């Protein structure tokens, strides 16, 4: 269920604010007080953590339950996407192979 229009405007405003602060604050302080080294190290791990935390529930959970089953076509397509991405390191190729795998798997499930 999507938020209403007012909340969406709030989302955009909030996103713009937090993004601008993290781009500007340190420039403003002109590097006089750098972040502690440990925080800088930890920041590298945020993007992969966010990505996996968005990917896994959308691929593995169906109606609130874990679906680790070959009949889960999203799981099959996700594995193909990951494999192709690993081999080619190319975003577009990986997405297209994943979509293709999803359609093929759905076709197969219809037959069996």
């Amino acid at each position: 269920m999507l938020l209403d229009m007012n909340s969406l405007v709030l989302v955009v405003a909030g996103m713009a604010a937090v993004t601008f602060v993290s781009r500007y604050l340190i420039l403003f302080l002109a590097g006089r007080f750098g972040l502690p080294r440990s925080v800088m190290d930890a920041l590298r791990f945020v993007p992969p953590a966010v990505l996996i935390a968005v990917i896994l529930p959308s691929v593995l959970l169906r109606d609130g339950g874990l679906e680790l089953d070959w009949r889960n076509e999203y799981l099959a397509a996700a594995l193909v996407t990951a494999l192709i991405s690993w081999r080619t390191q190319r975003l577009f190729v990986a997405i297209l192979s994943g979509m293709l795998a999803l359609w093929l798997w759905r076709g197969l499930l219809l037959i069996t």
Partner: protein
Amino acid sequence: MRATLPLMAGVIPFGIIFGALAVAGGIPAGIAGAMSAFVFAGSAQLIAAGLLASGAGVVVVVMTTFFVNLRHNLYAATLAPYVRNLPQRWLLSLAFWLTDETYLVAIRRYAQHDDSPHKHWFHLGSALTMYGSWQTSTWLGIWAGGSIPNPAGWGLDFALPATFIGMLIPLIHGRSMLVCVTVAGALSLALNALPNQFGLVIAVCAGALAGSLTHRLDQTGPKRGRTEPSAPCSST
């Protein structure tokens, strides 16, 4: 800007994907366009589109954006010595248009050993080129996404996870990344029942923490381990 051109080639498809997926997820075109115009942060926007489509609340989306964009602090810290003497209006504009791509191009230019006093113009030029490409490609995507009827029936609901997988895999290098991804992934599943996707925020914090701890153990372990078995791992 010639130095920015190869990066534009990477950004334009990304913008099209964002626009198309946002409208496919039910986000109004105006909101998707406003996000590109005012937030101007590719991965954060894609993740926000995914979260909104799955019913996340305002706080979770904004917090996630905050975490994803924390890395800009790193870029700003590296750029700061080169731009500290510019007037405030320059700092404000360079900050608003700071992205991964512009950072990479600009830092290379600043680091070159010539004394040109106009390097910040190069920086701004690159930034504006990226901004223009991002706006144009977003609207192309919005237009393309809006003209496909019943996107979920085509399996287009998988396009977003597929995009994220393609973004994630190249990031995974080494043991510490694996630990980070395993912890964050397991917690995201375990805590999925929490309201408004709040489990995601916890999963991300725990994953990043676990990853950086492993990284620190890996760095200090082999070097210090032999001479000083009980060495504390906070040597940095």
